[in-house]
């Protein structure tokens, strides 16, 4: 069994040496997951806001479904996206399979329910506070959604971070639809899975530590920027 200190040394060595393969893998991880979170935000934030604001038949059911989808196993999403983009699947012509595009789609599917559900609950709380005020001021539903999204943006940053964490951490979906192809679709988590299957546990854990550090830095940066902006602009 590798000791943790071995792994920390490996992680440190990887970072200090600026290993080119590692940089490539980290860059692809970030590119895929950040793009997926961006797309998921474009879908999930308005969806969450509409679920918080607009009453319509089936809304309660939809909220339950979106919340349940937060727990989707990545490998199931991977399988569905794989079958969709397979050459013999409905969208095979797009030739997304085994490219970062398929990985982005899979992670977008994974992350959208998280962002939508967290946004809905955040914005529902905010609506409870704002509802009467906005109505007295003459707001229509669209105004209410826009106001909530803007005034809730600092809380929503947390929802985006939760989504990003899930995207960066998952392996099941990107492994299936990306194929873990060296220099093409290999990301942090699939590299960790590969090294684990090679029995190179210190390296695998070292990569895991690097991933953790990246996630830490991303969270610190986003929360730091958020707190600064929040302190300056609002209260």
């Amino acid at each position, binding site marked *: 069994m590798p000791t943790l200190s071995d792994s920390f040394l490996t992680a440190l060595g990887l970072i200090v040496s600026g290993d080119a393969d590692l940089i490539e893998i980290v860059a692809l991880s970030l590119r895929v997951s950040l793009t997926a979170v961006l797309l998921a935000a474009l879908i999930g934030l308005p969806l969450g806001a509409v679920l918080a*604001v607009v009453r319509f038949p089936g809304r309660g059911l939809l909220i339950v479904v979106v919340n349940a989808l937060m727990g989707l196993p990545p490998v199931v999403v991977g399988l569905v996206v794989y079958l969709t983009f397979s050459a013999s699947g409905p969208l095979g012509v797009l030739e997304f399979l085994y490219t970062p595009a398929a990985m982005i789609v899979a992670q977008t599917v994974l992350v959208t329910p998280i962002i939508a559900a967290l946004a809905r609950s955040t914005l529902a709380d905010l609506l409870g506070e704002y509802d009467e005020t906005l109505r007295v*001021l003459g707001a229509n539903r669209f105004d209410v959604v826009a106001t909530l999204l803007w005034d809730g943006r600092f809380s929503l940053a947390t929802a985006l971070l939760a989504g990003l964490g899930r995207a960066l951490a998952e392996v099941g979906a990107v492994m299936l639809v990306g194929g873990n192809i060296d220099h093409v679709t290999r990301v942090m988590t699939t590299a960790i899975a590969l090294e684990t299957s090679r029995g190179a546990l210190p390296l695998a854990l070292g990569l895991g530590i690097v991933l953790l550090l990246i996630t830490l830095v991303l969270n610190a940066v986003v929360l730091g920027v958020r707190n600064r902006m929040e302190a300056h602009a609002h*209260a």
Partner: protein
Amino acid sequence: MPDPTPRVIPFQPPRPADPPALRIEGLCLSRSGAALLNGVEMTLSPGGVTALLGPNGAGKSLLLRVIAGLIAPDAGRVIVPRAMQGRIGLVLQRPVLLRRSVAANLRHALALARVPRRHRAPRVGELLALGNLEALADRPARRLSGGEQQRLAIIRALAANPLLLMLDEPTAHLDPQATHAIEALVARVTEGGTKVILVTHDTGQVQRLADEVAFLHQGRCHEIAGKSAFLTHPESAAARAYLTGKLLL
């Protein structure tokens, strides 16, 4: 979200004679079996300040919400003069300011009132001057002091030039100077022709600001009269008890 638009509840076909003043007829509202408004009847004078008095829990805040169209009554109606329709401002008992700067709160209200973009900046300037908040324009609204927040909430309600402004205990927690600032603001607003309904527990404030007084108790309007008449010779037993601090809830 319930539709915010109806200002007359329930909607009535145009009436032959447009009433000059706000009228409330047989307003009833119950929640979980308790009658909160229990047949409120009143006709307000067309201008000036009407003070709405009554003990805690009388239904004053609820009545303002119904007039503003935030709550639909179970029975009865609020008849708003046609000119006043869609031009009603309400400052809640606990005003909610947006998580934005003072000026951005005002810009937001102007945008919701569909004021064209190019007119907004000058109007924001006017409103800030009216509330004496120019120096605080760029401060986060929710960081203002209680009195400053009240002033901001009032000028925000004035953004769209309402013809009816309802203020729910705007000076409840304020020191004498802040109270004075708000009373001065209310006086200016009425001079501009806007009808004001003011909920207050402060008879001194009634003395200084009000033209008439409506007395609400247990969801019913017991009396509506001119200020001096009400303060010196209240007609209803409930109002008499209230003014002498002997009202049993």
